[in-house]
Structures are given as structure tokens and as C-alpha cells.
């Protein structure tokens, strides 16, 4: 079972994603509420996949992605964000995101995106 770290500043989103992922055969091994916590937890817990929000306090998701990829270039990070402009998607892919899902998302789309990794 693939292990996932769920990162979003909204408790509601973390709960929603946790429910969807567990229902579809993924194990949620941790959660983080900002980018800084996400980087620390990534290297503590060593998940197979990270789902990463962008707009968060302390450190945003693209910065956290960059920090994670610096030390682990093989990290698989899927951005899940309300910001769906082409500029943000391009930026995330350039910094190494493995995919990008725009909120509000459909359960099928999240799972298909993770299944492809």
C-alpha cells in the first residue's frame, strides 16, 4: 500500500483527502498544515507520495516542493490547489511536481493522478 503525506492548511481538506485516499487503497501516514511542517515530515516519515496545497502560511507549497526536491530529487509531489492559473501550474512542474490537480477536485481525478505515479 503506497504511503501518502497530506499537506493543506485547511483541516477540512486534510480530512477530505484522507477519506478519499484511504477509501482507494492508499495509507495516509501523516499530515502537515504548512510547507515548513511538510518538509520536516517528509524526511521523518519518508512517504511514497505527497499531496501539496500551494496557499499556506509560513511556507507555501511551491517553496516546500523545492526544498523537498533539493534533498530528494525522486520525491513524488502532487500539487492540489485552488490556484489553477497556467503560471502556477508551469511553476510547479518546473520545480519538479509530478502532477497538478485544481480544487474543487473530483475523487476519480485525484485517484487517477496518484495511480499514474
Amino acid at each position, binding site marked *: 500500500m503506497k504511503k501518502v503525506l497530506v499537506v493543506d*492548511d*485547511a*483541516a*477540512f*481538506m486534510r*480530512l477530505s483527502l484522507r477519506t478519499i485516499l484511504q477509501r482507494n487503497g492508499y495509507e495516509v501516514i501523516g499530515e502537515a498544515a504548512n510547507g515548513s511542517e511538510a518538509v520536516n515530515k517528509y524526511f521523518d516519515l519518508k512517504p511514497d507520495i505527497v499531496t501539496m496545497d500551494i*496557499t*499556506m*502560511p509560513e511556507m507555501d507549497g511551491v517553496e516546500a516542493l523545492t526544498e523537498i526536491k533539493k534533498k530528494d530529487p525522486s520525491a513524488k509531489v502532487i500539487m492540489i*490547489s*485552488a*490556484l*489553477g*492559473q*497556467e*503560471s502556477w501550474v508551469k511553476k510547479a512542474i518546473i520545480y519538479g511536481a509530478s502532477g497538478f490537480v*485544481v*480544487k*474543487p477536485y473530483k475523487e476519480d481525478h485525484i485517484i487517477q493522478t496518484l495511480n499514474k505515479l
Partner: protein
Amino acid sequence: MKVEYINPFIEASQSIITETTGLSTKVGKIYIKNTPFKGNNVVVLIGITGSIQGSVTLSLKKTLTCKIASAMMGGMPVEELDEITKSAVAELCNMILGNAANIFYKNNISIDISPPTVLTGENMQFSPSKSVIICIPLEFDCGETMELDLTYKEN
């Protein structure tokens, strides 16, 4: 009042509310508010920067907040403003602003948004300095209204 600033918020809020809750809304009469302006029991505040410098507050009663959170959680009963309920409505506002930012982007206006802050209480007043305040009322079928107040500095 910049008309081109208003339509993205109308389009984003109506489509996101319907998509995430199944509830539909009508836009009430849009008007300029004076400062200080009042908030309802629950207010979600999101800052905007970039081509528009200001903020958006979404203001609604506790009863509507619980209805919206319930709809976002697949109809699960919601009676109280607990942390998940507040987080749900904050996330709704985050998605509205994110979607609005995307519409602005397609119209060559670039904005960035802050994480949401949820405020709860009675008799809240907001006093933005040197700003225009445009109120977009969103009327739900149940008879309740959510007010989207766009505050920005005129150039």
C-alpha cells in the same frame, strides 16, 4: 467602482458554491459600502495582492455556515461552528478566490491570494483604510444571504 473587478468574483462564487455544495445562488443588488462596515456571525477574510491590492471578506450567519459545511460533507448533519465546520467554509472561500484569480489571469490581471482567516463573533466591524468597498450579495434558495465584500485601494 471598477466593473471589471466584479464579474470574476460573481462567476467564481456562483460556480464554486454550486460545484462544492449543490446549492445555487442569485446575485442581489451590488452596491458600495461605507467604512466601517459590519460583518455577520462568521466572516472569512482573504488578502489579495498583485494588480489588485485589498481583500475579500465573505460574511454569513452561523445557520448558513452550517448548511454549507453540511453540504460540503455529503449531507452530514452540522449544528455547531466547530473547527472542521469553520475550516470547510474557509476552504470554500479559498476555492472561490482561487477560481476568481484564474479568471482574472485569463483577462490579463494577475493577483495572488493569502490563506484564509476565519473570524466568528457578534457585531464585528471592518474599517479598511482608503479603500473602495463593493458588496456582492449572494442569495441562497433557503432565504439566507452570503455577502462578498471586495475591498481595494483605488490607484
